[in-house]
């Protein structure tokens, strides 16, 4: 059953609205919403869009991770591995280096998305031309090669960057975070994320078939190649958009699908929505810590990696964790 998870996400969201460092570190009493103009602006103009973005970020990474792991029949795959994360990183670094301080809002995000998507396109194009192995292996190899290419590009840009101003900006971007997110940034996410999430949810049962071998999926009257391309593009485009806004937020897309499958079984009819909800909860909680724990912002990617890896180790060394249905 998924409703406890949905309820948990809702509670976490409401609770997180009142978590922060105003008026003091910790809790913002709800009555301040009526009494204090600053508190109201803080909650509705800063915290709310940021919370919603964190939810979408976690949902997208968790869902896309489930999609990619299923389609690649490989539980070690992350949604950004098809050149997307490193492509976005390269785009963002390039934007930081070339755009001055007077650049239009979201320019960095737009350039990062272009490169993230081009990472996907390059990986796909390269995989089609490789003469080696089946298509799973080809795509994995192509993804690794394209990622390495972009990551060496990031290295070059870091080397060229001004060490006092640009280099820290690039480094912080690579660590991921939502600190500069506004309503505009959130609106920019929607056209990519909403279709991607909708597609995943609608095709969630069908996704199971793509975990089977192609000839079996074909014998069931499907066109595995076409359906796979469709869910992949949907999942990865959404990942590219969130990565462009948030920077590299690691481990969510790897760990959350595992937790969902462990708790709800392999059938993605349930496991996929569960991964969306768990991903949302995880990202929101991590972001709460990121903005509350210290006076300065802790990069979100550090927290998700730390907690994700810790959770992963705990989960995998435990015996079965299974929600009864």
């Amino acid at each position: 059953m998924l409703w406890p998870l949905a309820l948990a996400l809702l509670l976490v969201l409401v609770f997180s609205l009142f978590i922060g460092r105003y008026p003091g570190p910790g809790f913002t009493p709800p009555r301040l919403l009526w009494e204090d103009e600053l508190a109201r602006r803080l909650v509705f103009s800063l915290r709310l869009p940021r919370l919603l973005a964190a939810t979408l970020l976690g949902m997208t990474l968790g869902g896309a991770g489930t999609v990619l792991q299923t389609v690649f029949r490989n539980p070690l795959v992350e949604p950004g591995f098809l050149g997307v994360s490193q492509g976005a990183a390269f785009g963002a670094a390039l934007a930081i280096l070339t755009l001055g301080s007077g650049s239009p809002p979201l320019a960095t995000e737009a350039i990062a998305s272009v490169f993230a998507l081009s990472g996907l396109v390059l990986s796909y194009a390269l995989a089609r031309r490789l003469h080696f192995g089946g298509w799973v292996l080809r795509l994995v190899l192509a993804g690794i090669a394209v990622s390495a290419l972009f990551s060496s590009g990031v290295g070059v840009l870091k080397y060229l960057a001004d060490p006092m101003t640009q280099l820290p900006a690039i480094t912080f971007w690579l660590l991921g975070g939502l600190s500069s997110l506004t309503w505009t940034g959130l609106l920019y996410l929607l056209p990519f994320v909403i279709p991607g999430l909708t597609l995943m949810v609608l095709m969630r049962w069908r996704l199971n078939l793509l975990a089977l071998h192609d000839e079996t999926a074909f014998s069931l009257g499907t066109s595995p190649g076409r359906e796979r391309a469709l869910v992949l593009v949907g999942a990865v485009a959404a990942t590219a958009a969130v990565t462009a806004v948030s920077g590299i937020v690691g481990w969510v897309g790897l760990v959350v699908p595992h937790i969902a499958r462990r708790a709800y079984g392999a059938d993605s009819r349930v496991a996929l929505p569960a991964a969306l909800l768990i991903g949302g909860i995880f990202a929101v909680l991590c972001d709460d810590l990121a903005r509350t724990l210290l006076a300065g912002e802790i990069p979100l990617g550090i927290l998700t990696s730390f907690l994700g890896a810790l959770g992963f180790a705990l989960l995998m060394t435990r015996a079965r964790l299974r929600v009864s249905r």
Partner: protein
Amino acid sequence: MNPGAALSLRDLRFGYQTEGPEVLRRLSLDIPAGTAAAVLGPNGCGKTTLLHVVLGWLAPQAGEVLVDGRSLSQIPRRERGRLMALVPQAEHVPFDFSVLEYVLMGRTPYLGVLGMPGDEDHRVALEILESLGLAHLWRRPVPELSGGERQMVTLARALAQQTPILLLDEPTAHLDLGNKGRLLDVVAGLAGRGTTVLFTTHDPETASLAARFLVLMRAGQILDAGPLREVLDAERLGATYGVPVRVVEVEGRPVVLLDRGPAG
């Protein structure tokens, strides 16, 4: 074409590369409806390729496959999934799908692209598991099953498609004697109830246990095809495998032995 044929292959040519060697060479064959037919031949003679061409997964470079007289290439995908089901040689299931979830995947040809199995599909899946004596396994994760159980569950998944034609690729290759016997009984039983079964095997005993119709294949060509009793003889099998064999009758059943002369 032969009027009683469920499947007809006409002058099929197939090679994995257009320039490369042909795996199927001008191959023609009629499989009678409602019988179990075995394609028997040595390893690497093109049996699996033949099965994949019949399924439509591989498109022949020339020739055509007819299903009940209709060209396979003209049949829409979903309808094809209701005509033919496949039991592949070794189905690898990478995630912990339960047996029931896995068998439900066999209902795909009856569902829309965004559809999900409903009550009727659950009923069919459970009924099939019941009929194969697998009902007690329904919650178990498929990767945890034994080899014999897994092959039966794969068969159940194919049967959930409720097709008039069933294709099996080396269905007993990894099974012990008991499981082999059980699986072949099911296959023979299906044919007895009107399903057209086409299976490949490299093992003459498997063929003689379950099939009524035998196809001998070697190097991408059909050497002979016909009722099992007529085709299963020492001379033909010797030519198929390139070794001398003897066919002896044990309790009215033909048994194939390697001819090594008297022991000692």
